[in-house]
Structure formats: C-alpha cells, structure tokens
C-alpha cells in the first residue's frame, strides 16, 4: 500500500473533522452573546458547548501532531512561514480556553465582561486565521528558489481574505444552528432567526469561493482530470442547501448537514491541491508535496498502525459523550460543574 497517499487522506480528514466539530463551538463563541440576554441565558448558551469544546479542540492538536509526524517538511514550513499568523491563532486559542473555564470563577461584573470579550475574540481570531491560512495554501504560496518570499501582509490577499471571512461566517452559522437545537428558551428562537440570515451570507460566500477558485487557483485541475471528484463540492452545496430547508422542522438534521458541508468544503480544497501540501505559486518545482515533505515509509506505517488502533476508540468514546450530553445540562448540573 502507498502510505504517503493514505496519510494525505488521513491528514485531510483530520483537518476536515476538526473544522466540522470545533466550527460550531467557535461559532457559538462568536455569536453566543448576540442571542442571549442576561447572565442566565448566556450561561445556558455556554453550557451547550461545555462538555464538547475541549474534546473538539484536541482534533486540532492531533491534526497538527499528525502533520508533524507524517509530513515534517510541511509542518516545519507551514508554521515558520506563517509565524506571526500562527502566534495570533495560538493567542486566540489560549484566550478562549482560559476565559471560558474561568468565567464562572471570577467575581465582579467588570472582570466577567472582560473575560466574555476575550472569549469572543478568542473564538473569532483562530477561525479567521485558519481560513486565511488554508485559503493561501489552496491558492499557492510565494515559494521560490530562496524559500518563502511572503510575509504576514501577503497572506491578506483577496482570496485569502475571502476564505477567512467564509470560515468566520460559516462557523457563525454553524454555531447558531447548534444553539437553535441545543438550547431551550428564547436564545434558541433568536439563534434560529440569526442562522437564517447568516445562511444567506454564507451561501453568497460559498458561491464566491467556488467561482473565484476557478480564476485565482489551480484547484479545479484535479477535478477536470477526474470528473467524479466533483461529487465532493456538490455534496458541500447540497448539504448546505439542506441545512436551510431542514432548519425549521429538524434543527438537529440541519446542524448535521451544515457539518457535512463544512467538512466537504475543506476537502474540496485538499483534493484540489493534491499531491501538494504547500503548493508554490512561483513554480511547481518549489512546491512541498506528499513525496518531498513526507516521513519515511517505516514511520508512516507505524503511525498508520497506531491510528488504526486508537482513532476508532476516540471516535467511539467521543460519540458516547455526545449521546450522554444530548439533553441540555440542568441548572443543578451547571451549578455542580462550577463553570460559566
């Protein structure tokens, strides 16, 4: 078996799962404040992601770790080329974790307001930066004979900004859908109304992404080579549309549709860049590919074995946790948790 190809697939799936999962709690972080009035409602909104968000974020750590283990060349380049952006995302993630965990433990409305603002910023910044970063990867990076020729500002090209905003707005929609079926009472109705508006905005951005991609990137070359691959962007569009039509009657199914849509959107990009991991815009000769950036076959085989054993276990117990907490936390449970 060709382990390099297998690992490209796993690498893409891990990132896609991360965005599909953490997307909703990043979204709840961004818009939770707009759909709740007063501390009681705010607490119930936050508690809807309480049991899940940290487990979701581990998918990011795993995606990062797997990039390191399977494609060390890509890991080293991606993180050092995007140095400042990576630290910004990191600060966001730290801020988010700390403000959420400590919210219920500080006293005084001022300090709590500061923490709440930190949680919004900490949810928004990583979403934006991951969007900009992957947009730039999809578009190709200024990598020449002397290595990386870009800087922080060169990441902020129109295509990178488009994907950045797309990630932010899509996650916000995803988070609103989550609140609309996971939280009871007024926040749910407000989130449903907000989700309908955000859905339109996301739809415009997704359409723009698919169109601009044709002009500004080489992503569709692989699709033209193998027409069946168009199924993935089609699934993205279809499940996105389904999210809207299911929203009123089956908000839970709408949420799952939106999850599938996010995952397939990210996969659309990954399929497009294959076999590159970090394509060069200057000359394909400078691209980092799954062949020149990968670990040796021995390491890839060991890692495949470890993943084959442990990842199904992770999926099983995380699935169990989502079932265990499918009903909202009660006031008593929230009190016992000492959080929010």
């Amino acid at each position: 078996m060709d382990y390099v190809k297998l690992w490209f697939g796993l690498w893409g799936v891990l990132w896609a799962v991360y965005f599909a999962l953490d997307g909703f709690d990043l979204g709840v972080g961004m818009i939770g404040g707009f759909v709740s009035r007063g501390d009681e409602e705010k607490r119930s909104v936050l508690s809807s992601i309480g049991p899940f968000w940290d487990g979701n974020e581990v998918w990011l750590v795993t995606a990062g770790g797997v990039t390191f283990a399977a494609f060390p060349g890509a890991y080293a380049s991606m993180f050092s080329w995007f140095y400042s952006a990576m630290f910004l995302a990191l600060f966001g993630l730290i801020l988010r974790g700390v403000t959420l965990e400590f919210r219920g433990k500080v006293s005084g409305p001022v300090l709590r307001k500061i923490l709440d603002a930190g949680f919004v910023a900490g949810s928004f910044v990583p979403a934006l930066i991951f969007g900009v970063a992957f947009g730039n990867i999809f578009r190709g990076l200024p990598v020449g004979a002397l290595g990386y020729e870009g800087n922080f500002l060169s990441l902020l090209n129109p295509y990178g900004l488009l994907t950045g905003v797309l990630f932010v707005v899509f996650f916000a929609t995803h988070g609103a859908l989550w609140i609309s079926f996971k939280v009871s009472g007024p926040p749910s109705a407000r989130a449903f109304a907000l989700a309908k508006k955000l859905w339109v905005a996301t739809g415009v951005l997704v359409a723009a992404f698919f169109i601009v991609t044709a002009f500004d990137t080489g992503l569709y070359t692989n699709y033209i080579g193998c027409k069946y691959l168009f199924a993935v962007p089609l699934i993205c569009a279809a499940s996105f549309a389904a999210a809207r039509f299911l929203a009123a009657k089956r908000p839970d199914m709408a949420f799952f549709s939106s999850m599938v849509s996010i995952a397939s959107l990210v996969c659309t990009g990954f399929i497009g860049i294959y076999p590159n991991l970090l394509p060069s815009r200057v000359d394909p000769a400078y691209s980092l590919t799954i062949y020149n950036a990968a670990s040796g076959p021995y390491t890839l085989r060991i890692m495949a074995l470890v993943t084959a054993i442990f990842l199904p276990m992770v999926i099983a117990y995380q699935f169990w946790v989502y079932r265990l907490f499918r009903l909202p936390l009660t006031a008593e449970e929230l009190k016992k948790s000492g959080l929010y």
Partner: protein
Amino acid sequence: MDVLALSRLQFAATAMFHFLFVPLTLGLCILVAWMETVYVRTGDADHLRMTRFWGKLFLINFALGVVTGLTLEFQFGTNWARYARYVGDVFGAPLAIEATVAFFLESTFLAVWIFGWERLSRRAHASAMWLVSLGVNMSALWIILANGWMQHPVGYIISNGRAEMVDFAALVLNYHAWLQFFHTILAGYVTAGFFVMGVSAWHLLKKKETVLFLKSFRLAALFSLASSLALFAVGDLSGVSVARLQPAKFAAMESVWETRVRAPYVLLTVPDPVNERNSVESLKIPYMLSFMAFHRPDAEVKGLKNFPAADRPPVLPVFLGFRTMIALGMLFILLSGLAFYFSKREFLEARPWFLRLLVWAIPLPYLATQAGWLVTEMGRQPWLVYGLMRTSEGVSESVSSAQVWGSLACLIVFYAVLGALDIYLLAKFARKGPEAA
C-alpha cells in the same frame, strides 16, 4: 539578540511556564480519583466533599496546563523548523501519538467528570477521573519519550539528509527516557502531595473543617512520602544513566573539571568556569561521586576538560540547578516523613509551627521541578539532539528576529496576566474551603 537566542529564550520561558501547571496536574488527578473511589466504596460524605473541593482546584490548574502546552507544540514548527525537518521522521511520531492516545482521553473524560454528576452511576463517575489520570500520565510518557530521544537518540539512522526512524520499539523502550518519565511523574506526585498538605495545614491552623482536612492531610502525607522515597531511587538511577550517556552534562552537574578515578563528592563547591576550575572545594566525602555516577567507588568520572569547550554545557546554571534539586529532594523526604508521623490530630494541634512550615513549603516542589528541567535541558546544550544536532542548527531560517521579539513580548505579557489570574483563583478557592454537603 539574534533569532537563535530569542527562540531559545522563548522556548525556555514557555516550557518553564507550562511546567508550573503540569506537576500539580499529574498528581492531583490521582488524589481526587482516590478520594472519589473511597467515597464510592464507603459512602463517606467527607470524601465526596473532598473530591469536589480538590477537584475544583485541579480544574483551575488544569486549564492553564492545557493551553500553555499548545504553545510548545506550535514552537517546534514556528521557531525550530530546521529541527522539525531534520528529525520530524522520528520526533513527530511520539507527539502525534500523545495527542491521539492521551489528549483525547483526558479532555473528553474530564468533561464527563465535570458535567456528569447526575448522568452517571457513582462508580462510573469515579472511573472518569481515573481515565483522566491515565490520560494525563500517558501524555507525560509520550512527551518524555520525545524528550528522552533528544537526550539519548536511539532507533534511527541518518538517511536522505535527515534522521529516519528504523526501530520504533527502541524509541518506546528507551531506558533513559523511562527513567526521566518516572522522575517527572513522581516529582509531580510530590508537588501535588505538598500542595494538598499545605492547603490542608492552612485550614487546620484556622481550625476550619478539621475532620475533612485531616483526612486530606493524611492521604497527602502518605502519597508524598511514598513518592519522594521512590523519587530518590529513580533519581539515583537517572544520575547513573546521565553519567553513562551524557558525561559532559554529569560533569557540569557536579562542576567536575578534571577526570579522575575514586572521585570524592565535594559538598562545598564554588565553580569558577572562566578559569576552568573550582575556586572552593571542601568537605569531601571520599569515593562518593564515583559511587553516585557508576555505583562503583573506584569508577572514573569524566571531567569537563575532557570535552572541547564548544561541547560543554553552561556549568553554573546546571550545577546550581542540580544542587537545588537534590537538597530539596532530601527535604521532601524529611518533611513528608515528619508529616506522616505527625498526622494524628492531637500531634498536629500541638505543633502549629509544623503546619505553618508546610504552608510555606507549597512552592518548594515547584522550585525543585523547575531546577530539575533546567539541569536536563541546559545540561543537554550545546546539543539539540545529544551528539547529533546542535541547537544552533535547528532554528528556523525564514523567521526574523523582529517576529520573535514580537511573539516573545506578547507571550510574556499574556502569560504574566494568566499566571496572576490563576494564582488568584487557586488562592481564592483554596481559602474558601469545601462547600456544604
């Protein structure tokens, strides 16, 4: 400062800050799991309240441990890209395995523990904290297998211009790394034991919740005593392993300049690195250093002069760090032994000075673990991977010093705020005491 110096400073600062939270996490989850298990078995209401009280302190500490750990995983790529490229084939694997095997387990089941009081049987709820403990300690294992490989690289060959793994079993069964692992977790257990003893002592002095805090105190005293004794044994074996595998580090730890057989242990040493000698050497215990290094009184101990100056670690911090750690390690055995011996109510009430002493002892294990890592990592210099790659060869090529200045400055400000907030919250909830039943 150049990118190399700044990146080293940044890694050292963030790793040390991260390790302010890790040791307490390592031990406290086990104590909380134990308390809850006693509650499940006996139905003792005090143990339930203990579980909830110490569990809350555990959570405050855990949150910062998790987020500050992220910084380290990022930095291998951001600041040490050439390192990541050269050794990623070997070094990346334990990091990825740590996430897959340990991080998922601890974060998922911690959430189950926090929110699952009403949704699980008592037994299942207590099991959640045991799974967290398993995850936390396995996470330590995998990251230390990675670090142990930097100390004593095994199971690889140089091929395609980089280090490539050829023997995963050698990496996983790296004896030196396992010693480091036990050393680290036991130090964490001592930290947690002293934390619980110290906070309990504070409440016992105030005569608040005496029964509950006596139970906590006794458990923690036993835990600390057992751990600090085991730590002594593991520390001794680690010393032998370092003398064998990293002789320059061992020489720096004891500031030994000349190679000699039947080396004595010099209790009072004042290093003079500029002149490559010690300005003071007195109070010698004959044969002791040879015995410490190789468990043989006549063994030869290599001196620093045996190594080219460019291959020696900085002597002063390594030497001082090691002495600090050893002295504190001995003190922990003494203090926890006394605490265990005294841990009867009438004994403790008659000795408020001892309780006060234990309150003041809370920071000491933190100091010892910081000093220990200082020895391990400074002592590894100038190597990034011992004998294979120099630290100067690992730094990113595409990063500017302005960028690192920026990230370092932000990290310092940010971490200062987080550290202050964390200490404030820990102190607040530690003082507040347990909730009513």
